[in-house]
């Protein structure tokens, strides 16, 4: 355009700028000053522009850039810092917030004036922008000096608010924002100069509070306070802290209030979970769940306390039963299991309800409950294994005279609970054996109340433990049904062959050997009447099948015998053995112990037991000389003609032999076979397997029935190696190979 632009000397140009800058300072100080007009602004802008486009030595860009920075620095040092230094506490904070605002404004205006530098100069020299320079000035001169004090003031205010005082939240918000701004895009200043101290302070604050409250407050109250604190802290973050602080802050508070003291809290003597369960404080339990669910692994802590509580309660029940039983001073489980098992069932139901309601079925609690009951259900009571106790209880529910007062639905429920408890038992096969023995007695001595219940429990057991578990028992039930059918054809046989008829009613039940428990059969010399019965039935049975052999188990038989006593005739229901003893007295009036032994061909142990039941127990059918309470080998016996009872028919009980040892022996034997079978199965399918894996797979396969001992498995492996089912790899002694 040809217009000659006047050359601006630096000093002149800068003096013009100074006028503008001074005006700006006055504006910021709040003095009466008119805001910049467009013309004023343009003049300042153009001055800079001209000074920068001048050629050669008159290009004042660099000097201007430096002057820009100096201006800010000078302003801060002369005005800002002194005013900050003379103030304290929240007043200092206020001042800082104000000064920061001012600074930002100042930078904004100066950047507008010096804008031309931003366009070309900084790029040419790769220098920071005017904005960055502006912030950095504040950072280096103000922030560096003040941030620690600021942090302290802020934290004090926060603590005051925690104690319930009102504070200026907006002020705090703005002060905290400075830490964020000073990061210039990064959070490091906020985190390192503020947040870390905030977290430390919070930790110690709540640590002190927790220590105080745990001693003073009840468990429910403490929980309420904790809940309240957590809410307030979340609120605090929302209102004036940076949102990234929330997770970290809440975690610290949870840790101090809920994690550190969890055991003391929940185990509080008068208000802890023991009491809460006792008083059924469902809402408190729900609160516990909700609070701890938010803490990582928090539920695990609670579940642990829960587990210990349940275990302790269950163990106490067992110990009660134990004490009661040993006081009874009898060997047989005499009814204390009737009390114990329902109590355990009750305990189980109660905590199941809690599990499903307050603890929302969470698997930590499921696990805890399971582990607790696994401990409870595997304790012995007065020497009786828990498997036996559970089997006795089942027997009681199912037999006559057991639970007739209960309705069908109640019985079904009980059976269901029994099967559930069985799940916690390790030695399930011991239970099966005892159950089988008792089932045998129920079936043979006609003590079944209800066939449907018997079938129902068998199907439940089958479902839970697998078909092999119940196959023998089912066989037993079938045998008895078949025997009844068989009886009809036996009766017909007797009608058709009147000459072989024994002369009185007689029933025989044929049992399939594999299904029933093994019984000893004594070589007793039966009275002739009974011998005839045996012969008759043998004749009948051989006509039916030629391929089976009959072995008589007289210990399971019953006899109805008429006793012609002087007062009145009484029908005695006795075992075959007892009958055999009594019939001897038909021939001889008086018999000595040794005569009885030789005439019957029994052992001393058995003879003593029999004679005791007939002469020293409830019904004195025989008179004993001397009339002491126990049998000795020098005693003599005589029919007691004076015996009587108000009933016309009485059952003379013969206490069963304590077969607990035999059961345990039988189970051990079965276990050996079971381990063998499992090992062979695994070897057959895997062909080659390491020792460790073989052991663990065997244990797993058998876990439904029992827990095998590692030594027992090793012994079976050894045996199988000797029998050439498998071999150890000669090059790798930890590997086994299947030998087909």
């Amino acid at each position, binding site marked *: 355009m040809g217009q000659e632009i006047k050359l601006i000397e630096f000093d002149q140009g800068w003096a013009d700028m100074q006028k503008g800058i001074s005006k700006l300072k006055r504006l910021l100080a709040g003095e009466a000053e008119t805001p910049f007009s467009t013309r004023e602004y343009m003049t300042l802008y153009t001055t800079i522009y001209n000074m920068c486009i001048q050629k050669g030595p008159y290009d004042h860009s660099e000097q201007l850039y430096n002057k820009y920075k100096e201006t800010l620095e000078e302003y801060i040092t002369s005005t800002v810092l002194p005013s900050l230094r003379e103030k304290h506490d929240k007043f200092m904070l206020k001042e800082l917030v104000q000064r920061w605002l001012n600074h930002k404004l100042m930078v904004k205006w100066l950047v507008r004036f010096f804008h031309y530098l931003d366009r070309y100069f900084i790029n040419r020299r790769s220098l920071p922008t005017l904005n960055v320079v502006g912030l950095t000035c504040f950072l280096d001169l103000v922030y560096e000096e003040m941030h620690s004090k600021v942090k302290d003031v802020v934290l004090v205010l926060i603590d005051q608010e925690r104690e319930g005082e009102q504070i200026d939240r907006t002020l705090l918000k703005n002060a905290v924002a400075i830490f964020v701004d000073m990061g210039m895009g990064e959070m490091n200043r906020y985190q390192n100069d503020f947040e870390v101290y905030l977290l430390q302070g919070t930790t110690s604050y709540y640590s002190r509070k927790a220590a105080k409250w745990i001693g003073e407050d009840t468990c429910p109250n403490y929980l309420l306070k904790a809940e309240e604190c957590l809410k307030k802290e979340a609120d605090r973050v929302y209102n004036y802290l940076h949102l990234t602080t929330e997770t970290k802050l809440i975690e610290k508070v949870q840790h101090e209030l809920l994690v550190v003291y969890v055991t003391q809290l929940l185990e509080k003597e008068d208000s802890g979970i023991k009491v809460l369960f006792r008083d059924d404080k469902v809402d408190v339990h729900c609160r516990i769940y909700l609070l701890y669910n938010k803490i990582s692994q928090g539920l695990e802590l609670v579940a642990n306390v829960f587990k210990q509580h349940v275990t302790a309660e269950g163990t106490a029940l067992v110990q009660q039963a134990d004490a009661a039983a040993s006081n009874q001073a009898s060997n047989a489980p005499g009814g204390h299991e009737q009390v114990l098992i329902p109590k355990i069932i009750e305990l189980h139901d109660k905590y199941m309800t809690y599990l499903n309601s307050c603890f929302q079925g969470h698997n930590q609690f499921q696990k805890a409950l399971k582990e607790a009951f696994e401990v409870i259900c595997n304790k012995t009571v007065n020497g009786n294994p828990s498997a036996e106790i559970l089997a006795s209880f089942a027997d009681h529910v199912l037999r006559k005279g057991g639970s007739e007062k209960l309705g069908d639905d109640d019985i079904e429920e009980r059976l269901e609970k029994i099967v559930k408890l069985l799940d916690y038992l390790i030695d399930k096969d011991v239970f099966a054996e005892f159950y089988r023995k008792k089932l045998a007695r129920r079936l043979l001595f006609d003590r079944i109340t209800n066939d449907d219940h018997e079938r129902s429990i068998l199907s439940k057991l089958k479902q839970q433990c697998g078909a092999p578990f119940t196959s023998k028992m089912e066989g037993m039930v079938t045998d008895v049904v078949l025997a009844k059918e068989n009886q009809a054809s036996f009766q017909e046989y007797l009608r058709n062959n009147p000459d072989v008829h024994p002369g009185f009613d007689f029933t025989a039940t044929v049992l399939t050997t594999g299904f029933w428990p093994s019984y000893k059969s004594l070589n007793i010399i039966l009275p002739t009447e009974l011998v005839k019965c045996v012969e008759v039935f043998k004749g009948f049975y051989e006509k039916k099948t030629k391929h089976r052999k009959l072995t008589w188990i007289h210990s399971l038989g019953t006899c109805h015998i008429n006793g012609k006593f002087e007062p009145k005739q009484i029908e005695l229901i006795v075992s075959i053995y007892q009958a055999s003893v009594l019939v001897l007295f038909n021939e001889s009036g008086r018999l000595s112990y040794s005569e009885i032994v030789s005439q019957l061909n029994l052992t001393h142990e058995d003879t003593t037991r029999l004679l005791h039941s007939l002469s020293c127990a409830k019904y004195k059918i025989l008179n004993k000389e001397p009339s002491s309470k126990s049998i000795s080998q020098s005693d003599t016996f005589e029919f007691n003609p004076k015996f009587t009872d108000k009933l016309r028919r009485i059952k003379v009980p013969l206490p069963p032999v304590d077969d607990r040892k035999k059961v345990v022996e039988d189970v051990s034997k079965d276990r050996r076979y079971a381990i063998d079978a499992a090992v062979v199965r695994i070897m057959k399918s895997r062909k080659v397997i*390491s*020792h*460790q894996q073989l*052991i663990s797979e065997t244990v797993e396969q058998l876990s439904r029935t029992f827990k095998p001992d*590692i*030594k027992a498995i*090793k*012994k079976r492996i*050894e045996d199988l*190696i*000797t029998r050439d089912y498998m*071999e*150890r790899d*000669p090059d790798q*002694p*930890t590997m*086994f190979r299947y030998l087909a």
Partner: protein
Amino acid sequence: MMRRSACASKKTGQTNSTNPISCSPSDLFRSASSKASSKEMERIDNLFYFYANKSSGMIDPEGIETLCSDMEVDHTDVRILMLAWKMKAEKQGYFTLEEWRRGLKALRADTVSKLKKALPELEKEVRRPSNFEDFYSYSFCYCLTEEKQKSIDIESICQLLDLVLGSQFRSQVDYFIEYLKIQSDYKVINLDQWMGFFRFCNEISFPDHSNYNPDLAWPLILDNFVEWMQVKQS
């Protein structure tokens, strides 16, 4: 026999070659060595028949005893067992002609004195780690005298252990023998247990058993042995 004729045919073959006059030196050597080896074999066989039982055609226990006294070695000495191993003898107390030939040829002995002189070298060979495990398992199998026998009674095992392992693992063998005699779980020992004990001696620190783990694949008898020792030492 075969060699002689083979060598002979080779000779005739040579006459067709370009140089019909000279035979190759290896032919001469071969024929010489075959002559020597056949002489050696003859001496070995003669020695066999010297000790063998006339009616059975094998060297029987009596013959072995005589051989031992001629060698001035006790017939229960482990070196006789080593000799049996070298021969790969199948039946305890008996040597067949084939076995005899095999052993003596390998030892390059065709007289009693040479055989006796070969014993120290034989022992060194057996005790080499590459051979010893094989010898150890052989010694067990050698004692299975009955046809379907799989195990050896405790008394014999104790003697065998002492004989075979005593010099190398004195303390382990002594303790184990003591244990075997007082325990009642096992009346016989099978090959798996026998080999297991060898591995035990080689791998497990003794007498502290610090690196023994009963959950691993060790035979049960060794688990019980370690347990017994731990009780004894406490």
